[in-house]
């Protein structure tokens, strides 16, 4: 996964990762949104398997999780859909979800199935490495990148420790809080990103509250990948799937 991103980074000054919630508003819309994203140069997509207790998500993604579940979205459906998507699109895909989804499925079974369909990595916001010994071992065994997370509250030591377990890239959350709210990219933020960079050789993705070209411009040269999350969900809600392509195109 790291390799794939580095190849892309050779050609672009910053990569784009986007986010969708599987089954919200429907798999059909998911499919259309993904097509538009890929066609407009997104480098990587995290697909969130909805969970009833999305503790680290803000209102927009929280609601998307709940609606997806209310629509009857099952984990098995998410796998089938992911399998189809990965076959069609030649960019790396990740699963983002909470640990219980994996735990309940059976950790190894989950990894095996994900590897079978060509999933490249997992982002699990409620699984710090201390809690993920078997998870990390399986990630290694099935060659699926465990994407670890840095936060502004992480100490240098902590970042270094996290970095030893991370693969693919590090997800740097831009600020304290949950997904969705706008972040400020001031001096504190720059200092934080420097600390991140000093702690790892992995590429750095920055997420939480990135909404516009200006935000992305602010990250250029400092981060390797910008993550767009709630923003596209809101866009689809207000203007439909077809608005996603132009929005993505306008970000570079």
């Amino acid at each position, binding site marked *: 996964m790291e390799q794939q991103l580095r190849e892309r980074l050779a050609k672009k000054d910053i990569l784009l990762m986007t986010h969708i919630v599987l089954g919200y508003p429907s798999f059909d819309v998911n499919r259309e949104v993904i097509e538009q994203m890929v066609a407009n140069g997104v480098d990587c997509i995290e697909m969130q398997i909805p*969970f*009833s*207790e*999305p*503790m*680290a*998500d*803000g*209102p927009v993604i*929280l*609601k998307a999780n*709940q609606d997806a*579940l209310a629509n009857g979205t*099952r*984990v098995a459906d998410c796998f089938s859909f992911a399998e189809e998507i990965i076959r069609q699109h030649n960019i790396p895909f990740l699963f983002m979800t*909470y*640990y*219980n*989804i994996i*735990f*309940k*499925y059976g950790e190894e079974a989950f990894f095996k199935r994900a590897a079978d369909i060509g999933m490249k990595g997992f982002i699990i*916001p*409620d*699984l*710090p490495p*201390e*809690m993920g010994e078997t998870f990390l071992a399986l990630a290694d065994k099935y060659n699926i990148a465990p994407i*670890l*997370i*840095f*936060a*502004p*509250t*992480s*100490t240098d030591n*902590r970042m270094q420790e*996290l970095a030893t377990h991370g693969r693919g890239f590090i997800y740097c*959350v831009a600020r*304290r*809080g*949950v997904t969705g709210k706008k972040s400020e990219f001031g001096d504190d933020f720059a200092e934080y990103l420097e600390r991140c960079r000093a702690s790892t050789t992995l590429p750095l993705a920055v997420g939480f509250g990135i909404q516009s070209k200006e935000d992305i411009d602010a990250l250029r040269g400092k981060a390797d990948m910008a993550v767009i999350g709630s923003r596209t969900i809101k866009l689809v809600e207000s203007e439909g799937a077809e608005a996603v392509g132009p929005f993505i195109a306008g970000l570079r």
Partner: protein
Amino acid sequence: MDANGFYGQWGGAYIPEVLYQTFQDLKAEYSRCRRDPAFWEEYLELMSTYSCRPTPLTYAENLTRHFGGAQIYIKREDLNHTGAHKANNVMGQGLLVKRMGKKRVIAETGAGQHGMATATMAAKFGLDCTIYMGEEDVLRQRPNVFWMEKMGATVVPVKDGSRTLKDAINEAFRDWVTNVDDTHYVFGTACGPAPFPEMVAWFQSIIGIEAAGQIVKYHGKMPAKVYACVGGGSNAMGIFKRFLDDKEDIELVGVEAGGHGADSGAHAIRLSSPDATPGVAQGYKTMFLQDDDGQMNQTHSVAAGLDYVGVSPILTSLWEDKRVRFESATDDEVMQALDLTMKTEGIIPALESAHAFAGAFREVGDLSTDDAIIINQSGRGDKDIFTIAHAFEDPSWEKFIIDRGKEYSKKYSG
């Protein structure tokens, strides 16, 4: 508890990275407090001057006669300031917050009891306070909301998910990750990420420490059995802990919310029915009521404080080790136990606590009159007037509310 917060395979701390350092700080402060005898002294002093510890152990002479078995003793956590055992935990965490120098506390609440206790502590310690409460519960427990607000707390109705306790917990975590620097999350029960289960159980252990001394004084020996209701598990761990440590063979019984019955799907039985399975949510691993995909189920209990999908990992471990036996009591059994206790002893257990009574009543007649049992009365029931009068379908109460409602309606329409 091992270094990672596990009891056997249960527990842990499944937390977002933003909170990692705060948990390190919390664990460090907590372990300093545990090692410092002056801290426990300060805690005892606070509880004996602000709340009324030690709470009494009441001999229930009439219930004992009624059932004709073991001698029934009731541990009176209902006499705590704010009306439940929740005060023990909250005041303890309050002392911790003072030591950590934080200026704001947040908490989740289901029944409102823990929210009341936290708002009270915040007023006393001069802290800002925000309480998250499922919108459903805000509607059911308006009196508690009123008092929390009067004590200066902000009560935020949580409109997500099932709009009950678990959603309030998620929302409190969302606040915490946002305001982690100056805010402490006062977790309300022996659940959540480590060190909360251990810490809450520690503060609550004062219940069992007192009860053990009291039962020996009044009954001359240790009890045969100890009963407690089990929501998150804090009052149960509170009374069990001292007896667990004891060499004698004291049976500990946790009573869960049977709701409409174990087969109904509408209950909150995590350990004494096959409906729950292992899972990880709300920061810890335990037995959850969830579907095959790991999505949490709706639960039901007449007692808002027991209506929860998870359970203390400490209890789950004790259950697995067969050191604590788990039973459940249905809503109907609970109302009957409540009725009997009010009429025979002049004591009004909270609906939560009434589960412990119902569980004990089922068995106490079979025990020897030489033996004693202790029932933990975790709280008082008069806070539940809206639920209890409703459940009894009391016509005078209904008429009273109708008339009051009309009076207020007039004010808004005219």
